């Protein structure tokens, strides 16, 4: 039984590490393939993040003003 236990531990180790490496290797391959496909087929306007831009459009405030107001908002929230 003691022997079996060690055997079970070794089984767990080899199968476990094996599976971890196989899975993550497949994931590396999959990720590389996916990134290639995505960048080949839909390359240009993807990198930029659309939403913040859209919202910034609605906020034509200079950066300094923004910083002041954000600080105020922070202070206001901290009080709550």
């Amino acid at each position, binding site marked *: 039984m*003691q*022997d079996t*236990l*060690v055997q*079970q*531990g*070794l*089984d*767990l*180790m080899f*199968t*476990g*590490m094996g*599976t*971890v*490496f*196989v*899975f*993550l*290797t*497949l*994931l*590396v391959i*999959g*990720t*590389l393939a*996916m*990134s290639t496909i*995505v*960048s080949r087929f*839909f390359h240009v306007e*993807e*990198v930029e*993040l*659309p*939403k913040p831009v859209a919202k910034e459009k609605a906020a034509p405030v200079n950066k300094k003003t923004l910083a002041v107001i954000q600080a105020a908002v922070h202070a206001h929230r901290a009080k709550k």
Partner: protein
Amino acid sequence: MMPGQLFMIFVGILLLFLAIRKGFEPLLLVPIGFGGILANIPGAGLALPAVENAIFVADPAVLAALADTLGLTSWESPKELVHAYEMASPAVHHAAHQVAVGYGYSNGMLYNFYSVAIASGVAPLLIFMGVGAMTDFGPLLANPKTLFLGAAAQFGIFATVLGAVGLAATGQMDFTIAEAAAIGIIGGADGPTAIYVASKLAPDLLGAIAVAAYSYMALVPMIQPPIMKLLTTESERKIVMTQLRAVSKREKITFPIMVLVLVALVLPSAAPLLGMFCFGNLMRECGVVERLSDTAQNALINIVTIFLGLSVGSKLAADKFLDPKTLGILVLGVVAFGIGTAAGVLMAKLINLVSKQKINPLIGSAGVSAVPMAARVSNKVGLQSNPQNFLLMHAMGPNVAGVIGSAVAAGVMISMVSGM
């Protein structure tokens, strides 16, 4: 009050002290420590099921009725009844519960929390969903080979399993294979994964395993640097990595779906953990369910954390926690962290032997996960050798890879051990 309970109350206060004054993973250790105190209040029975509360009170009529239900014709101490209850089949369990309820006893509050939150598996999975919703896979996608670092660092898990069975084989500890596996997962450096695995494979050890996992995660800045420095040369630590490329929204949306499909194809046993993790991440990245993503990252994960912590605390009851095994778990756990760190660093060096684009081996240690602490440690140790070399973003790749790696290891262990 039994001395064990008094001692465990001190342990609970110690955990609170570590969490509050030393900043040890306070989000978990504050509820765990407090729950631990609650679980050890003598006579309150907060961590006990109705049947054990009834046995504790020891009304002769009730004991006789329970013994009858449990199929004991004679018994000498209430402990025997408790043992028979724990060993009983689900049907007998249910019947004994109804007898206890009929006599006016009820489950303790923490016992109920544990049943709903952990025994069902739901709380760790929801935490995992929330963590997924907080995770940015960008650095990993920019440099996918860091996934290998996250794979290597899981060696800490399995080496520790072997260590635990070694202790058992040499007669020093009395671990089963299921317990050894649950202890090993501490090396995954991932709290919810450790709790999930322990709840399936070794619920009695869950308290010690969770406390060890979160404590060592908090101790990562102390455990890892010596190992990292021992295994790397100064010039290796100075390696400057190339700026990570920008990753498109579409890649980030596709990644969790791809992981899920891969799980479906090759590793169904990791489906609950990785499924919820990917679901959280997809909610984050898809950009059309912001209110769900926000709730998963805030209200929901906070609520679940409160219940999870208190439930883990219920496993700090003296009679379960004060066991030589706990000491073994604490020792094995720190060994697991050390081996995982070393394996991550060595794997990075191995990759450098075959790959043209050099990796700073310091980011290998981040493969144990312990997000984001381990990545910060990589960055800090790197800055000591080269004050201009910011490794943080590079280390985030192996760091989140370590979460995936541990979940894969957890899936393998749960499915293999149940077949053993």
